[in-house]
């Protein structure tokens, strides 16, 4: 496999933001087996981790990190003790820190939502 410098950049950035060692994942798939939202995802959680290991920037276009609800079921199941939700958050943050908000506040004006939903959503999906 030929990794370019920019490939390594993505891997390093995710590791820095998450504080996790991405190469500790050995692809057992337990995170994906227990994830309650894989039906909604275009990549399984373990596939996201594999792409980050390979420095594949297409992972930034995946809907998986945005579907992740930080429910932590993968974290309690991971045999390597990896904090998979923190890796998902790191991928979200890479976009959010470029001002690419996932949620448009104007579109929420007409929705009736409790504060706990709004605050948590905006903390995860806007920069």
């Amino acid at each position, binding site marked *: 496999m030929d990794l370019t410098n920019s490939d390594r950049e993505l891997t390093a950035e995710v590791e*820095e*933001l*998450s*504080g996790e060692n991405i190469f500790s994942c050995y692809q057992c798939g337990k995170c994906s087996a227990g994830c*309650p*939202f894989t*039906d*909604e995802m275009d990549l399984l959680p373990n596939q996201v981790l594999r792409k980050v290991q390979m420095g594949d920037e297409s992972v930034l276009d995946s809907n998986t990190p945005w*579907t992740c*609800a*930080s*429910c*932590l*079921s993968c*974290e*309690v199941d991971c045999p390597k003790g990896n*904090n998979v*939700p*923190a890796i998902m*958050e*790191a991928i979200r*943050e890479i976009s959010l820190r470029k001002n690419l908000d*996932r*949620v448009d506040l104007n579109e*929420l004006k007409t*929705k009736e*939502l*409790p*504060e*706990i*939903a*709004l*605050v*948590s*959503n*905006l*903390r*995860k*999906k806007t920069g």
Partner: protein
Amino acid sequence: MREITYYPGCSLKDTAKGFEDSALKVSKELDVNLKELSRWNCCGTVYSLTDDNLMKQLGPIRNLIRARDEGSDELYTLCSMCDNTLKRANSLIRGEEDKRDKINNFMDQERDYEGSVEVHHYLELLRDILGWDEVRDRVVAPLESLNVAPYYGCMLTRPKEIGLDDPHEPTVFDELVESLGGTPVDFPYETECCGSYNTVDNEEMVLNKAQTITAGAKKSGADVIITACPLCHFNLDRRQADLLEVAPNHKPVPVIYFTQLMAVAFGYPEVNNFDEHAIDPREALELKTKAGSKR
């Protein structure tokens, strides 16, 4: 009377008013005074998982500092999201010296915080301090033939280091239901996420999950579902009402806070503000309990 310092969080003052009112009432019955922290701010609702942005940790930590400054070495929560966020921020302060120093240096108007406050959930008070016999003694309207699905959700039990019970096989709600005279039902989705904050920008995903969870509870024979989380409550209660518009054959199951179930068994169903619920739980509760019989 035992006095404990209490952090309500935003929802309990607004959309989850019935959660707070019922908790205050049952606490009084249990001879516990919930003393509200005199100045508090939003906990942030979700714990920040990025390693470098400490700004997002200041909200919860400021609440812990306020508790310490008011002379409390313990702080009690009811909302499971507040509980999780406050406990994890506290554990960050205790476990990571360099981050603690940075945060303390930044918050230079406050006295340094080293993690001295112990955060507990109200369920820990019931289970570990008062004990289930104390709860059982206050029951005047036993939940006799009521089948209750304990919905733990995510934040009460995960991550392991923070959770108040086993993340795979939690029992605290089951024990509570039994001590109120009801029957906890075995329910396959008791720790499965409801979709959480995705309810804002992906309603369909949460609608599907609300259907799976509530239909699963119904299939297990549940008359009612209990929760400790205002966001789970919104997603299972309000989204079930939305679901009924597109799937009229869905058989709804009411969702209530665990303290509301306690208030029913303690003989004070009127404190529960059930008018706020999208799926009215009164019929299910009154049919199967002696809740109608006031003290």
